[in-house]
């Protein structure tokens, strides 16, 4: 089929822009939520989303249409975050990586049996329904564990997609998820020992 010249021009420029907006705009609430969790600050979260959005728009020509747009734009967000954060956050990330590597090398195993109490007290189940407690526990997670749990549980990404966003092997995704949930459970259990505030 031969297209008229104006139709050919429209195919080259028009649809790509609208396609970007069609794909990116519905993801803005998710991007903002993750950005806020990472930056812990509304202004920084807005800046991070805006910068990532513009980077994605400018680089949209390099996006392969049949691949996963969500993973692609989250990867941009995450890389933008890593390059825009202070040295402190970067050092924390590196420190955790080193800790993980050390444990792996020592052969101790990341999750020795008994790391989690398998006989789950009922109080843990009740605690899981307490959003404030869970949010407090999430805030205590180290950034590499927080980002993996947000992508897995909130964004419902598959391990393969998370590996693509974080640019790490699937095995590392799996171990980080296990580590993140262990940390969350430990924090929730520790909260149980604190007295709960009840009114008179």
């Amino acid at each position, binding site marked *: 089929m031969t297209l008229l010249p104006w139709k050919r021009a429209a195919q080259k420029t028009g649809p790509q822009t609208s396609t970007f907006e069609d794909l990116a705009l519905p993801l803005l609430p998710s991007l903002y939520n993750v950005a806020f969790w990472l930056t812990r600050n509304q202004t920084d979260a807005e800046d991070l989303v805006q910068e990532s959005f513009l980077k994605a728009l400018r680089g949209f020509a390099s996006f392969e249409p049949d691949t996963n747009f969500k993973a692609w734009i989250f990867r941009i967000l995450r890389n933008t975050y890593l390059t825009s954060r202070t040295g402190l956050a970067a050092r924390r990330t590196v420190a955790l990586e080193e800790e993980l590597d050390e444990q792996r090398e020592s052969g101790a195993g990341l999750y020795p049996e008994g790391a989690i109490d398998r006989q789950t007290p009922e109080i843990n189940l009740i605690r899981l329904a307490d959003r404030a407690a869970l949010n407090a526990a999430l805030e205590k997670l180290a950034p590499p564990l927080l980002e993996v749990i947000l992508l897995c549980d909130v964004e419902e990404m598959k391990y393969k997609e998370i590996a693509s966003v974080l640019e790490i092997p699937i095995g590392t995704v799996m171990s980080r998820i296990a580590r993140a949930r262990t940390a*969350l*459970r430990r924090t929730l259990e520790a909260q149980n020992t604190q007295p709960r505030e009840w009114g008179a």
Partner: protein
Amino acid sequence: MTDHLSLVTINALADGELSAEQLAMANDHLAACPACTSTALVQTLLKTSVAKAAQRHAMPPGLEQRLRLLALRETSQSSPGTAQALRPARQSAFAGWAVAALLLLVFSGVIGLLHRGQRAEVASVEQSAQVTEVSDLHIATLAASQDPQVISSDRHTVKPWFQGKLPFSFNLPENLPSDTKLDGANLTYLHNQPVAQLLYHIGRHRVSVFLMQRKSGEAVSESQSEHSGFKVVNVGVGDLDLVAVSDVDPARLLELVGIIKGVQAGGR
């Protein structure tokens, strides 16, 4: 049984990441191992609880519009077609500007009208979604038959409990209508925003009053609606929205709402 499933496997099970073969093996093990079953249950509950709790940061209202404009500016700057179109216009610059100005006037008028219509439509959809959500929260509270997170009929206990939990403050009335009592309160979330859920009862009817920070700058005019047999009253008070839900007589619900609204200005 000594060989428990590894936590990585249990997590992969909770995340739906096991292959059919791995899933069958895990299920066989779970059928015979209460400890691993318990762990798997907790990991699954943790996953769903995190999914709900972590979805808490709502996008600021103006951000999407700002990004749309940025995208528009970006594409218009980078589009070669736009640059080419500007060049021949120099010959008849005045006529071009006049036409452009006229078009701009017409467009802005049309867009203004459309925008106003869309805004009204969006507001109506948002309000209807809010009615559904607060009704669901109220029903869930009734069904849970759990104690409130803060149990007290004393406003001096309930109000301070929210300090640091909410990005706003509010007042509670001391004098309530006859047969009306404060039972306590919960910290809950609505549209990913923290919200105070005040629990009252009027006679034998239970009432939830939700206090939340308004997203947009426009005050909500008083509105009443009904959802699943519950009366829902929505009023704007300063920077707050107050939504009350109950199956009590509407007049008595309105009386309570009026009293709570009245003390938000600082009075008691």
